[in-house]
């Protein structure tokens, strides 16, 4: 079955439906009697709500109903939650400000939901929302974390001193300080990790439905993890008990993390559907997405690296202020802490590490996981430090890295993680060869003659993926387990449905997962369907994020396949009157080893269901198995990205002229899909490095970059030539040896680009995004 099995570069089966316009997204679903929601959003960054007058709006023809926060409170609904508990260094639990889905007392960022207007059409709902008259008493706002930490800064939440949610630390401070005292050289850097706005192609959407006869609720929504959505909406918000709530996440057009979270809008639609007993739909407009999708990154860091006289890394310390926005979003506290601090060892053997992170509230949109989530921020700190250290000590950046690489595994870092396997030299050696590092000086001279500055930059990143195992996550504060579940249903006619708790929103699971099944069951890929995204059919699932779907989700499928094959062999053994061990599965048939006696796959499936030819006392009828799979460790994808670029000194324009990525993702199921993931990730990383910036006005707290007129999304012409290769050390923590590839590009690229840019301009004083205007200014003397 090598044609469609593991390692086969086959086209994505789901693409036919997507590119022919036959995808079925949330907004494509319409239910009888459906009405539309439009949210009244705060125009202020910070204000007290003194009155909400809905009279005029209610009088409009077609306006069905208007709900405010008070109505939700009166119904006893809970607020939105953050599912990861972080403890401050003084032992205090993080201070989570209340997050009502509709603000009733106070608004805390521009775009905060105040009321929901329900109308017979989108237009009417919108007119209604405009007609709602909210009286505000405007208050001073603060959008910069540094200012929010001032004693007399405006407070985002009452009673939270200096807007500090947590002051967390990781690592051994004394050992780190002692190592710094002995250092021959210390590299110091101040780093800004710019705020990013996610911009999935499909905006968020929700359609809530309620059946008054049965009391059942259904929510169709753009979620990366429908079971978690259901759990939060029932156990915490309290709209309906879990068994009375079905969450369906149909085709979803991209998420990048922003659709992991449980937001106010879908909460309100679902709840309102129950109140008015009609289906309620909302689809975000792009400008709402800018305002109210959870943003990413937004760190300010001071970092230091201590080296001995030989260039060995002795210790690393970092102090980071992370902007959390106005409320804690579903997983936001984990991102600048456990998904960041634990990665600060990079690929290096560093004796001691200490990191402190202050998570600060501001009057801006909540900040949560965005492709890479914490790991791009960590990689940027480590890789910028290492590159600068090489420059300051006149060492070759490649040699300095190699000198400090971890080469023995397993390796316990000073920041929790235990790296199980890797070969960092293999990646950098291949990447250096591909980019022709030796020829760089010549190329630099060539650029000079054209009046351009040329630079080369490295990024040898590591990430912790396949977010799991559950007990480890739990010990770090996760409110959920991070296993994955799967069910393999062999139908009587021999075709197979695989139900997975992972969710595909662009990743191509329907193809990759089917490839595994095709390989293991030796049946054609056309006979396999991957089912995901519906709590009514999938037993349970933790969803897709953190590059976990292949490593954890496919491993779960693999476990269920083991069980299916074992049972099928028992049935075959019965029918062929041999022992199960005598049976092998090959070429879609169960064969007695070494003979030509066999039962075709389809016949066996039928036999499993007719149950005529085996004793049902010994073997249950049917052929369907489930698993809940929890891996034994995180996985540690790693690699080396090298960027080469030219700077036009006249305009400040940066052109990436070559980009090489050599990644170790362990086992690769479909190289084409993996390359696509790397391409997209790198482009997002380039977006962060050169283009994208979420900016709030310091005075008014308005989002300045609230549309594509001002927020620079990478476009096709921003995509440089990308040259990829892969090395392979299979992950020992899961049966397939998969490490995960979804975030690598976004994690590695920003440091590679900035290292190249600073190499070109000859100084470190430039921050992301390095726009032409900034680059030009940085080279004026």
């Amino acid at each position, binding site marked *: 079955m090598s044609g469609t099995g593991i390692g086969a570069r086959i086209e994505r089966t789901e693409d036919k439906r997507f590119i022919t316009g036959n995808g079925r997204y949330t907004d494509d679903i319409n239910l009888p009697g459906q009405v539309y929601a439009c949210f009244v959003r705060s125009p202020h960054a910070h204000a007290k709500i003194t009155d909400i007058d809905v009279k005029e709006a209610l009088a409009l023809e077609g306006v069905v109903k208007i709900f405010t926060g008070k109505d939700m409170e009166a119904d006893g609904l809970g607020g939105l939650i953050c599912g990861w508990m972080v403890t401050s260094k003084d032992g205090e639990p993080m201070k989570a400000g209340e997050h009502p889905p509709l603000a009733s007392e106070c608004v805390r960022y521009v775009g905060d939901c105040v009321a929901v207007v329900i109308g017979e059409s989108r237009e009417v709902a919108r007119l209604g929302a*405009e007609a709602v008259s909210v009286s505000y008493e405007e208050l001073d706002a603060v959008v910069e974390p540094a200012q929010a930490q001032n004693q007399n800064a405006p407070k985002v939440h009452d009673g939270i001193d200096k807007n500090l949610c947590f002051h967390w630390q990781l690592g051994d401070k004394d050992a780190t300080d002692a190592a710094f005292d002995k250092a021959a050289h210390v590299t110091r850097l101040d780093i800004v990790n710019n705020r990013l706005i996610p911009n999935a192609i499909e905006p968020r959407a929700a359609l809530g439905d309620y059946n008054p006869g049965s009391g059942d609720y259904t929510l169709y929504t753009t979620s990366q993890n429908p079971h978690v959505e259901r759990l939060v909406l029932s156990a915490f918000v309290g709209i309906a008990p879990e068994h009375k709530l079905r969450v369906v996440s149909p085709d979803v057009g991209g998420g990048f993390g922003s659709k992991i979270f449980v937001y106010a809008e879908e909460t309100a639609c679902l709840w309102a559907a129950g109140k008015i007993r009609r289906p309620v739909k909302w689809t975000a407009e792009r400008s709402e997405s800018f305002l109210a999708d959870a943003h990413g990154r937004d760190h300010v860091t001071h970092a230091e690296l201590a080296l001995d006289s030989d260039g060995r890394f002795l210790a690393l310390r970092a102090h980071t202020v992370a902007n959390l926005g106005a409320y804690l979003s579903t997983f936001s506290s984990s991102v600048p802490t456990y998904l960041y601090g634990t990665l600060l060892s990079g690929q290096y053997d560093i004796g001691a590490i200490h990191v402190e992170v202050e998570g600060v509230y501001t009057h801006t949109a909540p900040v949560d996981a965005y492709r890479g989530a914490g790991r791009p921020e960590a990689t940027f700190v480590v890789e910028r430090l290492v590159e600068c250290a090489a420059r300051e000590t006149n060492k070759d950046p490649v040699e300095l890295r190699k000198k400090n690489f971890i080469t023995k595994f397993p390796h316990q870092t000073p920041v929790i993680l235990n790296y199980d396997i890797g070969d960092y030299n293999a990646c950098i050696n291949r990447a250096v060869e591909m980019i022709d590092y030796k020829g760089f000086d010549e190329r630099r001279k060539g650029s000079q003659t054209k009046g351009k500055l040329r630079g080369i930059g490295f990024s040898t990143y590591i990430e912790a993926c396949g977010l799991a195992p559950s007990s480890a996550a739990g010990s770090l504060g996760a409110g959920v387990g991070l296993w994955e579940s799967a069910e393999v249903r062999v139908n009587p006619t021999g075709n197979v449905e695989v139900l997975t708790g992972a969710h595909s929103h662009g990743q191509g699971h329907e193809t990759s997962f089917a490839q595994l099944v095709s390989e293991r069951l030796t049946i054609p890929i056309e006979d396999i369907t991957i089912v995901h995204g519906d709590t009514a059919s999938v037993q349970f699932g933790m969803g897709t994020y953190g590059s976990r779907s292949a490593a954890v989700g496919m491993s779960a499928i693999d476990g269920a396949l083991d069980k299916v094959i074992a049972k099928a062999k028992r049935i075959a053994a019965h029918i062929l009157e041999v022992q199960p061990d005598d049976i092998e599965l090959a070429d879609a048939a169960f064969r007695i080893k070494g003979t030509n006696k066999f039962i075709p796959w389809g016949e066996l499936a039928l036999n499993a269901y007719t149950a005529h030819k085996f004793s049902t006392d010994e073997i249950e009828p049917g052929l369907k198995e489930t698993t809940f799979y929890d891996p034994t460790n995180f996985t540690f994808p790693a690699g080396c990205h090298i960027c080469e670029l030219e700077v036009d000194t006249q*305009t400040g324009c940066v052109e990436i002229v070559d980009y090489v990525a050599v990644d170790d993702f362990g086992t690769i199921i479909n190289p084409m899909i993996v390359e696509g993931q790397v391409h997209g990730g790198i482009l997002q990383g380039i977006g962060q490095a050169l283009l994208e910036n979420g900016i709030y006005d310091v005075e008014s707290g308005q989002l300045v970059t609230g549309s594509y*007129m*001002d927020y*620079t999304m990478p476009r096709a012409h921003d995509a440089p030539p990308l040259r990829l290769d892969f090395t392979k050390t299979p992950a020992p923590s899961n049966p397939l040896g998969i490490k995960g590839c979804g975030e690598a590009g976004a994690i590695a690229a920003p440091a590679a680009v900035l290292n190249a840019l600073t190499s070109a301009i000859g100084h470190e004083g430039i921050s992301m995004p390095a*726009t*032409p*205007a900034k680059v*030009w*200014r940085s080279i004026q003397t």
Partner: protein
Amino acid sequence: MYPFTYHKASSIEQAQALLDVSNDSKLLAGGQTLIPTLKQHLASPGTLVDIGKIESLRFIRVEKANVVIGAATPHAQVANDKNLVQKIPALASLVGKIGDPHVRNVGTIGGSVANNDPAADYPAACLALGATIRTDKRSISADDFFTGLFETALVEQEIIVEVAFPVPALAAYEKFPNPASRYALVGVFVAQVEAGVRVAVTGAGANGVFRMTEMESALVNDWSADALEGILPSVDSLLSDLHGAADYRAHLINVMAKRAIAQTC
């Protein structure tokens, strides 16, 4: 969008009549500026009169020393017109850099010129080539037409019918796109026309498109990039925003002007 009445005109006369019916009516051409404005509830005309489909407004023809473009001619048609590519390649190339293929397939010269967005490309060509904007009422020279940010000499309900561009001896346009919007952060159009040397700058002026007379005089004597060395507009007259402060724009104007000249040498 707020509700409105839509009329599709098949002639200028019919469009005029439809405009006259109500006093809150507005012309619609390609809709690339107007429709987003309506969607954002930033405008609420009661009536839209669509002139985008009027055949007699969609043409490009050579008329003595001019190339004349009908107001409803979409950018894509202009960019690819054989006569124009031959007569005023700089203009064809400018139009080919407006927006993206979708925008170019529907956006029109009339809409662009009437809108006078300070970052739009067409106004630079009009001003540098000394174009004449011909309306249903009169002819207006480009020098008089563009009066400020999103402001023109057009009066209520005046319809642009066509724009006549004198064929230059030499011309070139250099655009530095705004990284986000891809409109011009700075665009410089240089031309040698019968009326002399003209240099027009878009994207940067605090008052919209403007002429750089200092560059014009320098180029009269010496049509070379070197002649522009050190000639920068005053920063006080320039826009400043998150994509580029006034001094950066001033610098870019000089760079783009030199590059435009270099194209012609």
